[in-house]
């Protein structure tokens, strides 16, 4: 079977994850973005946060290496809500799901959680708590910053710990019913994953051409009047496909990052971007 390549040598699915590992993962999740970079974004911090669970699950060193290698793949989500995905993935690893399914679940959940987290924290929790704090501090009241920190972190840490155990329990329950149909589950996870990537391309990449072409009397804004009429977001989509094409031509991601920096600076210099 093709999926044999992605399954673990040690097939035991004992329940080894305890509250202790989950709590250690929550604390480590604070460092999710410690090694943030454009190539893998949060991947290395994600792996660091998953290590307490992975070490406990994969006693076999080759299995541990295989699992760690997969968790070094590109990952990016909202830094507050990440513990939910960690809980689910810990349950999947414990159940020795094949890597294709785990990868599919990671990709399928990271995008929506990013959007929910933006709305919850940046647009709701932060403005409210910081607003209360600022209204006191602007009169010189020292309680302003303190009240802000207390309120904000009750929400922050409450969600971090709550979502970890919720994610893990959800994962354990889901695994029990899905184990027999791994092949189809992995296909379903891939479908959701790729649909979400399509939506991510449309919503998370910003690339617009502010150029306005003057032809006699007529002024034509290239982005609004031409490109958006054909297909909005065609530039982000096109640029992703170009990157995908170049990756398959064995261009290294680092090279693509440098190319992107150069395009950005030169584009700005000549007024094209």
């Amino acid at each position: 079977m093709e999926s044999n390549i992605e399954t673990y040598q040690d097939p035991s699915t004992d329940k080894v994850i305890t509250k202790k590992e989950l709590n250690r993962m929550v604390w480590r999740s604070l460092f999710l973005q410690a090694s943030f970079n454009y190539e893998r974004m949060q991947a290395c911090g994600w792996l660091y946060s998953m290590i307490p669970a992975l070490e406990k699950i994969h006693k076999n060193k080759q299995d541990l290496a295989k699992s760690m290698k997969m968790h070094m793949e590109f990952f990016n989500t909202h830094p507050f809500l990440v513990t939910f995905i960690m809980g689910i993935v810990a349950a999947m690893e414990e159940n020795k799901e094949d890597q294709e399914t785990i990868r599919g679940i990671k990709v399928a959940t990271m995008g929506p959680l990013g959007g929910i987290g933006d709305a919850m924290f940046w647009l709701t929790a932060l403005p409210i708590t910081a607003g209360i704090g600022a209204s006191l501090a602007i009169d010189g009241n020292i309680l302003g910053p303190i009240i802000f920190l207390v309120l904000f972190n009750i929400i922050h840490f409450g969600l971090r710990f709550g979502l970890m155990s919720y994610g893990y329990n959800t994962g354990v329950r889901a695994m029990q019913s899905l184990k027999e149909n791994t092949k189809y589950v992995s296909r379903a996870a891939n479908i959701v994953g790729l649909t979400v990537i399509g939506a991510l391309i449309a919503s998370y990449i910003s690339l617009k051409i502010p150029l306005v072409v003057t032809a006699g009397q007529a002024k034509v804004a290239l982005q609004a009047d031409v490109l958006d009429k054909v297909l909005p977001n065609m530039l982000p989509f096109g640029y992703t496909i170009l990157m995908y094409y170049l990756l398959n031509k064995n261009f290294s991601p680092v090279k693509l990052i440098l190319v992107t920096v150069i395009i950005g600076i030169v584009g700005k210099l000549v007024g094209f971007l």
Partner: protein
Amino acid sequence: MFGEALLIAIWAFIAGIDLFDGLTHIHRPLVTGLVVGLILGDLQTGLITGATLELVWMGMVPLAGAQPPNVVIGGIIGCAFAILTQQDPKLAVGVAVPFAVAVQGAITLMFTIFSPIMHKADIYAENADTKAIARINYMGMLFLGLFYALIAFLPIYYGADLAKSVVSSLPQWFIGGLSVAGGMMPAIGFAMLLKIMYKREYAMFLITGFILATYLKLPLLAVAIIAVCVAGYDYYINKNNTDKPAKREVRSHGI
């Protein structure tokens, strides 16, 4: 001045790390105003300037992963400037924002420089070296913290006016170009995911997701739920198709 500048640099170290890691939000101008006020011995001005800057930065949050002008340096420079020059806290905003924009550009460069280190991390992962993975993350935070400490120390030690003229002499196309590049960067990450996950039979799902978000402006959660519905349908169709031949086989054995 050296002592105060050093203390502020230490605060920048801590707050700079908190911006990406920890996220307890001690890095917000509201808290920085309190701390810088205590260090420079003018709590009132610190609190008021911090609150003023907090309101300015309230909308400048990393929505959809785009980096806003750097709130840590903006808060520290703004509060220190207001206290040291005894100017109106509102003027501090005008000083803080150019610094914050320049630092935002520098952070884009740093995320670029960190990228090659990931190949080192790949090798550690292949060897199941959990300690080395931890070390990379600790080093990343140390490096970032030192960068913030240095950026905060220099303008306070040498005076904000000198620093401001240095910042304003940076060419706009360079800083602006870095931020344009920062907006394009996620394309590389998504392309890497596609390289791992993409198969021809999944192409229409990629396009469906793109169209739902582009034309219908659906949020990601809505797109994901639609995808789960489609995937669920696909799952049961496949499952039933494989169940049936199995049953037929049993029957044929019966005959």
